[in-house]
């Protein structure tokens, strides 16, 4: 190769979009899992589980893409971040095991249905909370010495990361309620709207707390948001977010099937952009930028070939499974694998 093409922006985009796809897609099915235990009857719980049964495992593909992408394209970041969030990642994986098994065992292991019901709900909640811990620790930054994480394995459990964890639990519940509104009708849908309203209130409060706490604890982030002229350029972010909260509230109270979900998704997009603005261009906050943590150009080029081949396949089968299982779930039709 005579001319070196800079692949860092491409990999940043792939990782950024991949992680967002994960948050959006697994976010709603973890959310559905958390709401599941609040359903009154077994019939309702069956419908709720069936609403995500065909798609939840495909959604988790994006977690693997995000993890492997970080490992391969930004190895220095992986080497620092993953040891720093060792326990939250471990908790997430163990929680996901219980949650995934619940789909299989709940119906085959009829005597222990309540056990797997709880496994499904608590597994979902713990996975969401653990992801929030990772995000919170990431925003706060890590104790770095040279090319290593220098802190301890429990440093990531801070009041801030715990609040971000709760924030994600609330946000995922909102997405989950949005999905259930799309997938159900009648009484069950009305129930999902009620829970959606509570989740929206909780999410709004949590996002507000995190948005105020972050700049307060970090002068660099505060300067980025509140110095002139940034404050003018960035003002649309909180304004649009506030408008979206209003929109989701209204559509939860209307007859709209898709409004709450689409609005909640847009709320996630805005929060994601907000975090990106705060941290850019660092991938290990305060220590390494995306460029500094990137693998060698030859490595990134190497990986890109495989990724560009696989990504369309993932997108196509994901889209296809959503298309096949579109529409409302009903008690008499399900899916079995």
């Amino acid at each position, binding site marked *: 190769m005579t001319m070196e093409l800079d692949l860092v922006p491409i990999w940043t985009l792939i990782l950024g979009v991949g992680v967002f796809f994960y948050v959006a897609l697994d976010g709603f099915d973890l959310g559905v899992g958390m709401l599941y235990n609040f359903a009154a009857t077994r*019939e309702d719980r069956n419908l709720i589980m069936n609403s995500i049964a065909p798609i939840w495992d495909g959604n988790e593909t994006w977690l693997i893409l995000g993890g492997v992408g970080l490992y391969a394209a930004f190895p220095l970041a992986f080497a620092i971040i993953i*040891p720093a969030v060792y326990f939250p990642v471990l908790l997430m994986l*163990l929680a996901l095991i219980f949650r995934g098994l619940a789909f299989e065992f709940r119906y085959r292991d009829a005597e222990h249905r309540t056990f797997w019901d709880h496994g499904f709900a608590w597994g979902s909640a713990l996975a969401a909370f653990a992801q929030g811990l990772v995000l919170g620790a990431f925003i706060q930054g890590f104790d770095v010495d040279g090319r290593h994480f220098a802190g301890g*394995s429990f440093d990531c459990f801070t009041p801030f990361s715990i609040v971000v964890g709760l924030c994600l639990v609330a946000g995922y519940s909102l997405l989950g309620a949005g999905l259930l509104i799309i997938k159900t009708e009648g009484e069950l849908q009305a129930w999902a709207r009620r829970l959606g309203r509570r989740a929206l209130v909780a999410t709004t409060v949590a996002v507000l707390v995190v948005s105020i706490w972050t700049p307060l604890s970090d002068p660099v982030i505060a300067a980025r948001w509140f110095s002139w002229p940034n404050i003018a350029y960035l003002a649309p972010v909180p304004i649009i977010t506030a408008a979206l909260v209003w929109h989701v509230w209204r559509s939860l109270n209307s007859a709209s099937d898709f409004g709450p979900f689409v609005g909640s998704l847009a709320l996630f997009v805005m929060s994601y952009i907000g975090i990106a603005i705060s941290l850019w261009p660092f991938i290990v906050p305060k220590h390494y930028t995306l460029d500094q943590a990137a693998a060698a150009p030859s490595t990134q080029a*190497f990986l890109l070939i495989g990724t560009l081949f696989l990504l369309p396949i993932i997108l196509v089968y994901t889209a296809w499974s959503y298309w096949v299982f579109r529409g409302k779930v009903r*008690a*008499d*039709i399900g*899916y*079995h694998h």
Partner: protein
Amino acid sequence: MQTPAGFELIDGRYFPKSWIEAIFNPSFPYRLAHTVSAFYVTTAFVVLAVGAYTVRVGQAPAHGRVMLRLALWFLAIFVPLQAILGDLHGLNTLEYQPAKLAAMEGLWETGRGVPASIIAWPDQAQERNTGEMAIPRLGSLYLTHSWDGEVKGLKDFPPDQRPPVAIVYFAFRIMVGIAVLMVLTVATGFVLMARQRLDDTTWYLRVCQVMAGAGFVAVIAGWTTTEVGRQPWTIYGLMRTAESVSPSLTGSDVLISLLLYMLVYIIIYPVGLFLMLRLVWKGPAVSDEEAEPIEAGHPKGPIEALQSAPEAR
């Protein structure tokens, strides 16, 4: 990482040079074939065991007889094939990971016409085996395919580049021992089949049932052989396991996470095993309800339509 290839080392960091070389590294074909074949054999022994149980208790014996024969014919091909693949894998290990091979054989002294150690206690500190039973010259024959082929002993490697010998030595013997039992089981099956006694020889059917877990134990023993045998290296010959540990990770962190994994597996494995056993105890359904197509053209859900869920009846 066992036989790394297709990379270059620049300033102490590894960079890929060739996908093809990295994937098709020297031990790749043997490792892949030996592992995949092991899974087929493992599964076939489970089928054999379930078939044996079904025939023995007289529950859907027609299904059971088919399972027995299918599994036996399959194993008649795959068990010998697995032995050949294992032998080829061994030749490859001799070439690329001689220290591992020496540990598998419990061989300390380099030599020609080395003995085949049957059983012994390898003593890492004393650099010798105690209470050894061995067959002279046989080792060289199966390791190098020549009566006086040279095989390197552990003493050829500095003590800090030797794997924990006893673990590798015994794990390898467990794997090979199970392979011998497998060959005997299959051979006995064919003798009984030839005499038309396969379906009513109760002791043999019981043996088949016991062999259900044999493949799993062999796979884990083989895995232990290759992974402990490659110590002390993470990237063979290049990066030591001790160097690849995350600096922040303490021993107690690892212990906590291991205990958490164990806790989860202690719940999941018995439940999964019980559910599968229950399927076997119940026997095949008279009519295969699940296969019936329903309205949407999709079969029924994990939340099988409520009426058929056992507790809802």
